[in-house]
C-alpha cells in the first residue's frame, strides 16, 4: 500500500510539475519572451511522436518482429529530412491562412469546404481513438506491472465495472488536466506555448528514462554489450531474432511499413499540430530536420539490448511490452522502475495532451461550429458572446475524446498488443496523405475527389483492419475472417480479392491507398473545380515565394460596424479591438484608438463607413484562426455583399506582387553594382591624383637637379668671360669645374633617359650567358681606384670559381659599379668600410654589398628605390660635408629596373657582418648546359 501511495504521489507530482511549466510558458508568451523560440525546443516538441508505443511497444515489437520496429522511426526520418521542402511549405500556407488543424488545412485547400473539414475531423476521431486507448492501456498496464510484480497483470479490467477500473480514472484525470492546460485562453486561436514547453520537457524525461534503463540492462544486468550479445547469440530461440525473416510480410512488408510511417508522420493530427500550427519560426525547421532524426536514433539505440536481455532473463512467460519495467523490477531496483514508469507516463501523457487538443480543435471547428451555424437560422439567432461557447465546446470535445478512448480500451483494447493498435491508427490517418500531399503540389486536385477518395480509403481500412479487430474481440463471428463476407472467399478481409501472403497492414495500406488515390485522381481529372476552389488550389500550390502575402480576396461591400459586431460575437471584445486596430489605414488609426478607449460598440465612430478589402480579409483570417476557414467563410459571406475575387484576379495580384518583388530585387542589385563602380572610380581617381603629385614632384626635382650644375657652369663661365686677366692656374681650375659639372649634367640626363626607357619598357637589354665572377671583378676594377682614393676600405669575398647567369653584361656591370659606389657613399665617416660578397644561394647567384654606415630604417628600405629619394636624404642629412661626390638619386631605381628585367631581385637588408645596410642583388643561375654556349660566345671586350 505504501508503494501505491508513492507511485501516486510521483505521478501526480509529475503532472503538477508539467502544469507549472505550462503556466510559466504561457506567462512568458504573454510577456513576449517566448520560451519555445528555439530549434531545440521545437525538435523536442516534435518528439511527441514517440509515445508509450515507443517507450513500451518498441521493445515488444523488437522481441517479436525483429528490426522492423525501426521502420516506425525511419519513415519519420525520411519525412523530416524532406521537411525543408514539404513542411516549410505547409507552415507558410498555414501562417498565411491562419490554419489551426489538419482538417482545417485540407478543407481550406479544397475551397474552404466545410463538408471536407467535417469528414477529416470524423476520420481523425475514428482513427485516433484506438491510439489514445493505447496510451491509457499503457499507463494502466505499467502501473499494474509496477504494483503487482512478479504477478502478471490480469485479464480485462472492465469485468470489474468501470468505477473500479483504473484506466477510467486515468482518462478522467487526463481530461481535467488537458482542459486546464490546453483551453485556458479565451482567445482560442492563439498558439499553446505553455503546452509546447511542457511537451518538450516530457520528451526529455522519456529519453533520459529510456536510456537509463538501457544502460542499466547492458552494464548492470550484463557485463557490457559484448557479454549480452554473445550470451544472446548462444541462445537458440534468438538466432533469427534480428534478421528480415522475423519481419512480418518480408521485404514487401518492410517497404509498406516504412511508407506507412512516412505518411503518418505528416498526417497524424498531433504531428501537424506541433510541426505546423505551433511552429514559431520556420527557420527552426532547418535544424530540427536533422536533430529530430537524431533524437529518434538515440531513443532506439537501447531497444534491441533490452529486448534481448528480456527474452534471455524473462523467458517466454514475460510480456515483452513491459520488459522495460520488469527488468529493473527483477533486479529489485524499485527506484529505477518508478523512474521508468514516469518516463512512460511522459510518453503517454504527452501524446494524449497534444492529440486531444488537436482533435478537440477539429471537433469544435469542423464538426460542431458549422452545424451550429447552419441550424441556428443564420448567425442572427445567437445573441450571446459565442467565444465563451467556443471554449465550452472544446472542453466538451476533450472529455468526449478521452471517454471514447477509454471505451475503446475497455471494450476491445485488450485483444491487441501496443504496436498493433498504433499501426491501425497509422493506417487510418495516412488516408489524409493523398489529399494533403497531392493538394500541395497539384493544382488540379479537386475537393470532390479528395472527399470521396478519403471515404473510399476509409471504407477499405474499416473492412481490412477495423472489422477484423471487432471479429477478434468476439463482436463479429470469426467466420467473417476465415470465410469472408457472406462466405465469399474473395472478400476475406485479410486477403481481399485473393491477395494473400502480405501482412495485414501492408495488405490494408495497399488496397486503401489504391482506392483513395484512384478516386482522387480520377475525379480530379474529370470534374470541374468551382471558383473558390481554384483560387485556394492556386494559393496552396504556388505558396513558394517568400514575402508574398495572401492578397485580399474580397471585392464586396460591408460596413465596419457589421464586421465589428460579427467579430465581437465570436472572438470577444478585446480580440476584436486588436484585429480592427491593426488593419486600419494610418489616417484613421487615431480614431480607432479613441473608440477603443471609449469602449467599442458605439456606432458613431466610423462604424457606418464601408470596410476596406484588407479589413474584410483580416477579419476572415481572424475568424478562421478561431473557427476554421470554412465557418469563417460562411460568416463573412453573411455580412458582405458582393463577390470574392476569382482565380484569375487572385493570380494576377500574386503575379504582380512577385513581379514587383523581383523588380525590387533587381533594382537593389543594380544600385549595389553602381555603388561598387563608384567606389572603384573613386579609387582610380585617388591613384591618378597620387600619380599627378608624383609627376609634379619629379619635375620639380629634375629641374632643381639640372639647375645646380647649370648654375655653377654659368657662374664660372661668366667669371672667365669677365676677368680676362685671371692667372692661368686659376683659369684652368675654373675650366676644370665647368667640364666636371658638364659631365655631371650629361650623366644626369643620360640616367634620366635610362629611367624613362626603363619605365616605359623601351630599354632593351641584350641577354646572353655571362660569368658573374669575372663581371664582378671587372666592375671592381673600375671603381676600386677612385673609391680607395677617398679613403674607403674595400673588402672582397668571392667564394665561387665561376657563376653563370643570363643578362646584359654592360648593364649589369653598371649596376655593380653603382651599388659599390653607393655603399661607399653611405659608409661611416671615420674609417669607412665596404664589403662585397659573391655567393650561391638556392639556385641564385647572390651579390651583397655592405657598408658600415648608419644603415637604413626598415620603413625607408623600399623608399630608397624611389626616384631622387637619396638626394633629399643626402642633402638634408649630411649635405656635402664629407666632400664625396653626390649622386643623382636615380642610381638605385635604375639598378632595380635592370635587375628586375634580367629576372632577378634587388633589395635592402640589415648588414650581417658590418653595422650598416646591405644591398642584395640576386640573379637566377643559368642552366648548366648554357655554359657550353658561353664558350662559343666570349664576354664582350672591356
Amino acid at each position, binding site marked *: 500500500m505504501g508503494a501505491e501511495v508513492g507511485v501516486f504521489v510521483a505521478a501526480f507530482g509529475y503532472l503538477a510539475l508539467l502544469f507549472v511549466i505550462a503556466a510559466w510558458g504561457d506567462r512568458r508568451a504573454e510577456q513576449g519572451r517566448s520560451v519555445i523560440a528555439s530549434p531545440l525546443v521545437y525538435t523536442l516538441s516534435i518528439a511527441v511522436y514517440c509515445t508509450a508505443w515507443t517507450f513500451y511497444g518498441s521493445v515488444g515489437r523488437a522481441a517479436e518482429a525483429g528490426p522492423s520496429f*525501426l521502420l516506425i522511426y525511419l519513415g519519420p526520418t525520411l519525412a523530416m529530412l524532406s521537411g*525543408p521542402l514539404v513542411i516549410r511549405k505547409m507552415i507558410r500556407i498555414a501562417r498565411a491562412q491562419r490554419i489551426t488543424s489538419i482538417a482545417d488545412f485540407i478543407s481550406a485547400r479544397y475551397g474552404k469546404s466545410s463538408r471536407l473539414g467535417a469528414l477529416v475531423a470524423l476520420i481523425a476521431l475514428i482513427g485516433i481513438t484506438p491510439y489514445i486507448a493505447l496510451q491509457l492501456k499503457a499507463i494502466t498496464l505499467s502501473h499494474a506491472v509496477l504494483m503487482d510484480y512478479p504477478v502478471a497483470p490480469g485479464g480485462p479490467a472492465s469485468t470489474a465495472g468501470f468505477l473500479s477500473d483504473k484506466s477510467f480514472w486515468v482518462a478522467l484525470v487526463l481530461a481535467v488536466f488537458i482542459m486546464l492546460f490546453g483551453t485556458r485562453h479565451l482567445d482560442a486561436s492563439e498558439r499553446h506555448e505553455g503546452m509546447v514547453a511542457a511537451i518538450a520537457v516530457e520528451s526529455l524525461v522519456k529519453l533520459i528514462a529510456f536510456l537509463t534503463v538501457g544502460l542499466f540492462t547492458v552494464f548492470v544486468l550484463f557485463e557490457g554489450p559484448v557479454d549480452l550479445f554473445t550470451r544472446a547469440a548462444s541462445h537458440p530461440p534468438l538466432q533469427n531474432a534480428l534478421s528480415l525473416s522475423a519481419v512480418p510480410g518480408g521485404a514487401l512488408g518492410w517497404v509498406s511499413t516504412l511508407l506507412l510511417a512516412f505518411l503518418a508522420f505528416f498526417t497524424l493530427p498531433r504531428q501537424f499540430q506541433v510541426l505546423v500550427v505551433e511552429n514559431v519560426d520556420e527557420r527552426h525547421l532547418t535544424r530540427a530536420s536533422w536533430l529530430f*532524426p537524431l533524437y529518434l536514433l538515440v531513443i532506439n539505440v537501447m531497444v534491441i539490448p533490452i529486448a534481448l536481455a528480456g527474452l534471455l532473463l524473462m523467458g517466454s512467460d514475460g510480456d515483452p511490452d513491459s520488459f522495460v519495467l520488469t527488468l529493473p523490477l527483477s533486479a529489485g531496483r524499485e527506484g529505477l522502475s518508478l523512474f521508468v514508469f514516469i518516463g512512460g507516463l511522459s510518453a503517454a501523457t504527452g501524446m494524449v495532451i497534444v492529440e486531444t487538443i488537436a482533435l478537440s480543435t477539429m471537433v469544435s471547428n469542423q464538426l460542431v461550429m458549422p452545424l451550429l451555424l447552419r441550424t441556428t437560422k443564420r448567425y442572427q439567432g445567437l445573441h450571446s458572446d459565442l467565444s465563451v461557447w467556443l471554449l465550452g465546446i472544446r472542453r466538451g470535445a476533450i472529455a468526449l475524446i478521452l471517454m471514447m478512448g477509454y471505451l475503446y480500451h475497455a471494450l476491445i483494447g485488450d485483444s491487441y498488443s501496443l504496436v498493433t493498435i498504433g499501426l491501425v491508427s497509422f493506417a487510418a490517418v495516412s488516408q489524409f496523405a493523398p489529399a494533403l500531399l497531392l493538394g500541395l503540389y497539384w493544382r488540379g486536385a479537386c475537393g470532390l475527389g479528395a472527399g470521396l477518395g478519403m471515404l473510399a480509403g476509409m471504407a477499405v481500412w474499416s473492412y481490412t483492419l477495423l472489422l477484423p479487430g471487432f471479429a477478434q474481440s468476439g463482436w463479429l463471428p470469426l467466420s467473417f475472417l476465415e470465410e469472408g463476407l457472406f462466405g465469399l472467399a474473395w472478400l476475406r478481409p485479410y486477403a481481399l480479392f485473393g491477395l494473400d501472403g502480405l501482412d495485414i497492414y501492408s495488405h490494408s495500406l495497399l488496397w486503401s491507398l489504391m482506392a483513395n488515390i484512384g478516386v482522387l485522381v480520377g475525379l480530379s481529372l474529370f470534374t470541374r473545380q468551382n471558383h473558390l476552389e481554384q483560387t485556394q488550389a492556386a494559393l496552396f500550390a504556388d505558396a513558394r515565394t517568400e514575402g508574398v502575402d495572401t492578397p485580399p480576396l474580397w471585392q464586396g461591400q460591408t460596413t465596419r460596424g457589421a464586421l465589428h459586431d460579427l467579430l465581437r460575437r465570436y472572438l470577444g471584445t478585446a480580440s476584436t479591438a486588436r484585429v480592427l486596430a491593426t488593419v486600419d489605414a494610418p489616417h484613421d488609426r487615431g480614431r480607432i484608438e479613441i473608440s477603443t478607449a471609449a469602449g467599442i460598440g458605439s456606432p458613431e465612430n466610423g462604424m457606418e463607413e464601408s470596410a476596406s478589402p484588407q479589413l474584410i480579409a483580416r477579419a476572415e483570417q481572424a475568424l478562421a484562426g478561431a473557427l476554421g476557414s470554412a465557418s469563417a467563410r460562411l460568416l463573412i459571406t453573411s455580412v458582405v455583399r458582393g463577390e470574392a475575387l476569382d482565380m484569375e484576379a487572385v493570380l494576377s495580384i500574386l503575379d504582380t506582387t512577385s513581379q514587383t518583388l523581383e523588380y525590387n530585387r533587381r533594382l537593389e542589385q543594380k544600385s549595389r553594382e553602381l555603388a561598387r563602380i563608384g567606389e572603384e572610380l573613386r579609387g582610380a581617381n585617388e591613384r591618378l591624383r597620387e600619380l599627378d603629385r608624383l609627376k609634379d614632384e619629379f619635375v620639380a626635382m629634375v629641374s632643381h637637379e639640372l639647375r645646380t650644375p647649370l648654375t655653377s657652369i654659368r657662374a664660372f663661365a661668366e667669371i672667365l668671360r669677365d676677368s680676362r686677366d685671371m692667372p692661368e692656374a686659376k683659369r684652368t681650375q675654373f675650366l676644370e669645374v665647368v667640364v666636371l659639372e658638364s659631365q655631371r649634367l650629361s650623366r644626369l640626363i643620360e640616367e634620366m633617359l635610362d629611367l624613362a626607357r626603363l619605365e616605359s619598357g623601351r630599354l632593351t637589354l641584350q641577354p646572353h650567358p655571362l660569368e658573374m665572377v669575372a663581371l664582378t671583378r671587372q666592375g671592381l676594377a673600375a671603381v676600386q681606384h677612385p673609391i680607395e682614393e677617398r679613403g674607403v676600405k674595400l673588402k672582397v669575398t668571392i667564394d665561387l670559381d665561376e657563376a653563370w647567369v643570363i643578362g646584359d653584361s654592360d648593364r649589369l656591370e653598371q649596376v655593380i659599379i653603382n651599388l659599390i659606389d653607393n655603399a661607399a657613399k653611405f659608409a661611416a665617416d671615420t674609417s669607412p668600410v665596404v664589403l662585397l660578397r659573391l655567393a650561391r644561394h638556392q639556385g641564385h647567384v647572390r651579390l651583397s654589398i655592405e657598408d658600415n654606415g648608419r644603415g637604413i630604417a626598415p620603413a625607408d628600405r623600399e623608399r630608397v628605390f624611389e626616384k631622387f629619394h637619396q638626394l633629399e636624404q643626402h642633402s638634408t642629412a649630411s649635405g656635402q660635408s664629407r666632400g664625396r661626390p653626390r649622386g643623382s638619386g636615380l642610381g638605385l631605381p635604375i639598378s632595380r629596373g635592370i635587375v628586375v628585367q634580367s629576372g632577378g631581385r634587388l633589395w635592402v637588408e640589415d648588414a650581417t657582418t658590418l653595422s650598416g645596410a646591405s644591398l642584395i642583388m640576386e640573379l637566377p643561375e643559368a642552366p648548366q648546359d648554357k655554359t657550353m654556349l658561353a664558350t662559343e660566345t666570349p664576354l664582350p671586350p672591356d
Partner: protein
Amino acid sequence: MLKSRRVQRLLALVILAALLFTPPLILLADQSVDGSFSWLAAYLFVSWAFVIGLAAWLLERRPEE
C-alpha cells in the same frame, strides 16, 4: 529561402536515405556470420547515423554565395 542547389542536395539526400533503408540494399546486410546475429540492425543504425550526419553537415553550413 533555401538556395536551389541546397534544395537539390537535400532531395538527393532523401533519395539516398530511402535507398539505404529499403530492399534490395538491406538484403545485403541481412546476413549472419557463423550462427551469430544478422547484421541488419547494425547496418540500419550505421546508415541512419550516416544520413543524419550528412544532413547536419548540409543544413548547418552557411549558405554559399
